[in-house]
């Protein structure tokens, strides 16, 4: 059933289109020439060494990791209780509150970055780190509300009520009954929000400062003046990290949970 040569051909071409460019990056990362070329001449791992020894890239990688984890954790702290309240109780204006929480996805990233830059950096004069944290918190929150929210909505709350009648306090029941039952949703939301924050460009572009840049932004500014395989090498390492993350998700929740 459902076998059609035309469709199969298009599907094959689409996957080639999606993967050949990435394979090209992998190949060029091993070239010995100072500029990226294809086909490559020779074989070297120097570009990997150069990337790993670069202070700029390593410190921006650490900052990206740190901001990603912190901002997502902050979004979880704010977002999990909120999505519980929205799913559990009859809240007036529920749809409005929910779309308010999702509003960072409606406003273009570049606009979020620009207005935040004007407000936090120029007007309030907050340090760069705090600015980046707030910006990344904003873009992470909708993922938490959406993914954790849908687990919360599917939860059977009679369990929680049983715990209440047995004398469990509300907070204890929430921690002991509700949270463990939505843990896979929380994990999936964390992964999605973290990857999204780690990969984000427009918000980081505006909020980065001298010496404090996120990895994608420092890659961008490096590419402005250089065209060498260092970028290829970094790309390959990041793709390996992505694969590792996907493998981790597949082994724990199954990839369908974040698709």
């Amino acid at each position, binding site marked *: *059933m*459902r*076998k059609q040569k035309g*469709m199969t051909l*298009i*599907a094959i071409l*689409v*996957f080639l*289109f*999606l*993967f050949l*460019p*990435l394979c*090209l*990056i992998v190949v*060029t990362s091993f070239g010995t020439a100072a500029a990226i*070329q*294809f086909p490559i001449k020779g074989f070297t791992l120097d570009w990997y060494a150069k990337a790993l020894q670069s202070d700029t890239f390593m410190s921006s990688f650490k900052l990206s990791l740190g901001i990603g984890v912190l901002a997502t954790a902050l979004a979880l702290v*704010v977002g999990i209780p909120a999505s*519980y*309240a*929205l799913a559990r*109780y009859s*809240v007036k204006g529920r749809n409005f*509150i929910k779309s*308010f*929480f999702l*509003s960072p996805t*409606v*406003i*273009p990233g*570049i*606009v979020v970055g*620009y*207005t935040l830059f004007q*407000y*936090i950096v120029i007007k309030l004069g907050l340090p760069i780190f705090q600015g980046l944290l*707030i910006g990344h*918190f*904003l873009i992470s929150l909708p993922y938490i509300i959406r993914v954790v929210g849908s687990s919360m909505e599917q939860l059977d709350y009679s369990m929680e009520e049983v715990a209440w*009648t047995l004398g469990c306090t*509300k907070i204890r029941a929430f921690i002991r009954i509700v949270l463990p039952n939505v843990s896979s949703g929380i994990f999936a939301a964390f992964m999605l929000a973290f*990857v999204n924050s*780690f990969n984000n*460009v427009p918000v980081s*572009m505006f909020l980065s400062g001298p010496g404090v840049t996120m990895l*994608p932004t420092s*890659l*961008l500014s490096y*590419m402005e003046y250089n065209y060498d395989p260092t970028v*290829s090498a970094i*790309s390959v390492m*990041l*793709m390996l990290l*992505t*694969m590792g993350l*996907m493998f981790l998700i597949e082994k724990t929740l199954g*990839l*369908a949970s974040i*698709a």
Partner: protein
Amino acid sequence: MKKHIEFDLENEYTESVERRTRSVYMNKNVPYFIVAPGMILLLFFLMIPLITSIMPTIFSDQGVTFSNYLEFFKDEYNLSIFWRTIRVSLIVTFISIVLGIPTAYYIAGVGKKWRGILMAMTLFPLLTNSVIRSFAWINILGKTGVINTLLLNIGVIDQPMNLLYTEFAIIIGSVYLFLPTMIMTLVGVMENIEGEMLEAAETLGASPFTAFRKVVLPLSIPGTIVGSVLVFTGTLTAYTTPQLLGGNQKMMMSTFLYQKANTLGDWQAASVLALIMIVVTLIVMKGLDVVAKKVDRREANNA
């Protein structure tokens, strides 16, 4: 002894009633307290910055004015960027639909194991940084890139072509960026189309292609609309890809905004662009939402 127990039970009972009344009373306000921190943070760091940036473009000393926006649309250079952004977004959405539907249909039809692999292969580019994905196309389209090297070597051209920093480059880079989104959205829809319906169509004499056209395509319209909103607004607001593949020669609204704000320090113009981008995004979202609802109603009426 017995009496004592009864007494205790009664006590317990009143206590639990009390607790329940208290909790009913709390139910009214507690959820608002729980959602408040998030709402306050969003208000302070999303809404207020947005309003303080955009207010000056609408309110001046003379009161409400739209002159900033009228002037923006009077300028031919601005207009060319505006229309390029819309045009590129439309073309990218169209290509994503044309390539996405057959691919999603194919993925939904293969065995469970292969479906998992193909879904992972669709997800992988989505989780890969947009800088990397645009960088891939610099390697392909650049002056010393794969295409030019290949064509020069076999002698088709004797001068490298300008493929990079063109609208074509932005389009192909954006399709590359957003096609996986379209496929992911559509696979879910395609999986819900029951195989029996197709079999029925084919038993009744429809060729596989006719069955696809008459059964699958109409049923996948709502999913296609959802995917189109994501692809269109994504392309409209993407920054990395137009920056790397279009450069300063072929600007899109987002790169234009960045240039105005950061390089030129023209905040008035940047804020005007910001509001235009928000309004266009909202119009597309609302507009296609209305279309999707109409399609749904028609489906319901036909059923």
